[in-house]
């Protein structure tokens, strides 16, 4: 190869830069794609109307069902069986309901909660108490 060493070095540098550019682009795109795939954000849970059936073993004076610290259903002297619909989000991790009941009398009483999830799955839970019941119920 003819020419001065300086020219030869410059030509070689140009060739290397020409080759490294597409490699750099390809590598960067790969990283971006990987990061994009990994950082896929979990979807926000949507609000759903969930049927809830409450069955009482004794007369309840007052019942409150709370979700995330807010009362979502409340009734006084609800009778032995009552149906409600809760407008709450139901993420795939599930939900928790805080239940507070004031019972008539001083014998042990139970409340059965049957909640139907947005996919139709039925969950069955029970809580007990004497005079009062205050509990957190998880679904599932």
């Amino acid at each position: 190869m003819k020419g001065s060493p300086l020219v030869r070095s410059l030509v070689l540098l140009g060739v290397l830069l020409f080759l490294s550019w597409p490699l750099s682009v390809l590598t960067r795109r790969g990283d971006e794609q990987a990061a994009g795939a990994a950082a896929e954000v979990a979807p926000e849970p949507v609000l759903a109307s969930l049927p809830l059936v409450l069955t009482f073993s004794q007369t309840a004076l007052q019942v409150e069902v709370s979700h995330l610290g807010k009362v979502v259903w409340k009734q006084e002297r609800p009778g032995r069986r009552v149906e409600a619909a809760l407008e709450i989000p139901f993420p795939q991790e599930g939900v928790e309901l805080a239940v507070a009941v004031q019972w008539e009398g001083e014998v042990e009483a139970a409340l059965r909660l049957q909640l139907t999830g947005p996919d139709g799955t039925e969950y069955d839970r029970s809580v007990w108490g004497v005079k009062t019941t205050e509990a957190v119920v998880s679904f599932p």
Partner: protein
Amino acid sequence: MKRTIFTWLSALVASCFVVSWSPLQAAEALKVSVFSTILTEIAGRVGGDAVKVTGHVPIGADPHDFEPRPSDLKKVSAADVVLLSAKHMEGYVGKLKEATGGKVQVLEVGDQLPTLWMKGAGHAHGPGHKHDKHDKHEEGGKGEKGEKVEDPHWWHSVESTQKAVRVVRDAFQKMRPEQKDLFAKNAEAYSAELSALLKWAKLKMAELPRDKRKLVTSHDALQYFAKEHGFTVYPVSGLTASEQPSSKQVAELLTTIRAQRVKAVFSEDTANPKVLTQITSETGAVLGGQLWVDGLGSGSASTYDGMVRHNVTTIVDALK
């Protein structure tokens, strides 16, 4: 005058006689040496006036870094029973057994409780957490990178703490059968308080959506808490003094925090503020506050009830 002196002397002799035959004299207080702030409270509550509890690990101290001093070993040798947190927490258990010459019962309370596991590399053992030649747990407690080891922080489950109360009660009853009823009564009263505490914690936790229960903590110490309250733990290894997370670990954590929409991260100290700063600046998560993970803390967290309330409130309020 002589008659007066005689009367006083008689009264003195009689009172000494009465004291020497009293039940208190018969049942000398059980000397209990404890190497966990949590167990110090449990021993005091279960034993009441019938025990003399010496807490060797000060409140607020890191049990991973703790090493017993010669004065501790001297007290241990004079004790009736030694209570350890165990599940490999106390790497100096061999030293204690050597100091007692096998004459003092060493009760590793945590070893009688259910176990949860964590990644070895995620749990930075401090200088005190060495496993010497006497340590029977040497093989199980190393926690090499990638290997799963027992999470020793069992007290973050209130239910486990209630079980620990029963373990301590049983040990005291065995050593002092004549005070069986007293220990049973004390344990029952304390356990009832713990039930109320757990009920409060569950109700407070119900304010936090289940899909937001992602816990980014400084080191992997909250597996029991996570199980009791339905959390997933993402520990930042290296926040404790002896371990630094790799850039790959940090990158993975950043991706997870973004993907899981984690609102806050929690520290137990500021040993590695650089990583916390990086996490908060690159993800938008905020610093949720300081948690007491290695034992009782200061101020309102200097009791078990206060520590649990502090941790639960800090987590719920920051993540909801």
